[in-house]
């Protein structure tokens, strides 16, 4: 009996969580420009799959270009973070230097600086560097992630130092230690960081909104909002189609990498 009520609770919750998606999916298949369907008529008489073609191959809004932009930016941010954060984490975990703890505390402090708080100064800096409206503006600021450093440092600290010492006896220097020893062992942590970084970059809305201005440089997130505002202001079915289209890559990535997400959260909270 206890199990039945648990399953009931879990299923109800799943329904609650899934409803917005299912709703959206149904609406996206209604005829374009039709009125908002009532609850009882939510399932369309005939699914209008051509809505998807309208969105993806849109003439007014370069949707495919948005996808390419998001992909480029996300991939490069992931690569960048993996290298930069692992180097920093390596330095913080393995290389004793004066003020190391202070530096780490500073890194943690920068976690409070994000998006809305640093928008203005970051924008000014980027403008000064003539990076506005380029891939650089979208990639560079995200490469040095304090969260990434934190995550990897936690992981490195758990690797026994005996491995280091054994390697040093064989004549390894810091670079070899980092490149040939620590990194291969850290694949799970790196995978986790990569998964998080990809999703975070792909779904980042605020920064690409202010860092890019030309239509060709926009990412999927920003493009989606443009779509809502300009193209289908009151075209509900089409808007939902756009939302679904934007969600698909994220869902695919998530489903492929899901174990990394679960592991990553627990790593991050220090458990």
């Amino acid at each position, binding site marked *: 009996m206890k199990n039945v009520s648990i399953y009931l609770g879990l299923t109800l919750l799943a329904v609650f969580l899934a409803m917005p998606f299912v709703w959206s999916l149904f609406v996206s298949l209604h005829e374009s420009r039709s009125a908002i369907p009532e609850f009882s008529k939510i399932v369309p008489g005939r699914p209008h799959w051509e809505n998807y073609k309208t969105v993806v191959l849109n003439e007014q809004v370069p949707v495919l270009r948005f996808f390419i932009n998001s992909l480029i930016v996300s991939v490069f941010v992931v690569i960048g973070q993996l290298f930069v954060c692992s180097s920093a984490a390596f*330095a913080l975990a393995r290389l004793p230097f004066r003020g190391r703890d202070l530096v780490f505390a500073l890194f943690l402090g920068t976690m409070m600086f994000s998006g809305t708080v640093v928008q203005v100064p970051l924008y000014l800096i980027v403008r000064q560097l003539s990076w506005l409206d380029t891939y650089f503006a979208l990639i560079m600021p995200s490469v040095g992630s304090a969260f990434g450093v934190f995550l990897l440092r936690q992981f490195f600290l758990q690797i026994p130092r005996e491995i280091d010492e054994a390697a040093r006896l064989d004549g390894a220097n810091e670079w070899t230690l980092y490149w040939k020893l620590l990194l291969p062992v850290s694949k799970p942590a790196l995978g986790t960081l990569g998964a998080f970084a990809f999703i975070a970059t*792909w779904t980042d809305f605020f920064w690409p909104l202010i860092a890019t201005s030309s239509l060709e440089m926009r990412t999927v997130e920003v493009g989606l909002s443009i779509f809502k505002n300009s193209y289908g202001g009151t075209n509900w079915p089409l808007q939902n189609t756009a*939302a679904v289209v934007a969600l698909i890559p994220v869902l695919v990535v998530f489903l492929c990498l899901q174990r990394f997400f679960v592991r990553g959260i627990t790593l991050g909270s220090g458990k």
Partner: protein
Amino acid sequence: MSHLSIFVILPIAFSFWISLQDWNVMKGTIQYVGFSQYQSLATNAQFWGSVVNSLLYTALSVPLGMAVSIVVALLVSQPIKGANLFRTLYFIPSVCSTVAVSMMWIYIYLPQTGMINSLTKLFGLKDIDFLNDVSWALPALAFMSVWTNLGPRMIIYVAGLLSVPPAQYEAAQLDGAGAWTRFWKVSWPALAPTNAFVLLTGTIASLQLFTPVYMMTKGGPLYSTDVVGYHIFVEAWKKFHLSTASAQSFVLLAVVALCSWMQWKLFRKQAESYE
């Protein structure tokens, strides 16, 4: 090894250096105006209104989100088949883009034909235009955030629950404690550091809310959802008062830092008392 450290600190210093760059001077035409920005900020009622909104939103969304996440974590931690599947499912909303989620929820909150109103109509309840109602808009956004943030919070709580030694539960059961008592006397104290973490990260994130406001309410109706994150955005990019926005960003930073500090102290105290 200093080269590695320098090479590495540089991009991260990008973010850090920003705090030093936070002058209230707009590069270009306007001259240095000193602290007068902060002075005028003190009398800027709309800005402080947005601060209140942010605090209100945080107070609504974070505790509720934590409570729901704990319950879900408890459910998912039960030794039943398929718990893993549910766990994965519950995580999906949080990886979805806030933009798409906002668009979906606009629809949910629509008057008359929206999902919620369609259902409440069946019970004879009044039709509510959530996003256009001054008293409902902010709570509506807060509720949405519970849905969105459930995944990560749930996982953190699951991990936290796992760290309680089963022996403690057994001892409690031997003493005749029911499930409710077991939760409050065993699980809850053990979750103290987890609670602190979720509270801290939830607060920091909530105070910087932007995307749903931009997508769904644009600060309305009547500024009831004008939170600080959105307010600064409007100030900086719609009105082009970059210096005013800088000063406001600094205030936001101070508020975030203050909340973080307070919660950090609480965390230390709780963690120490648990040991």
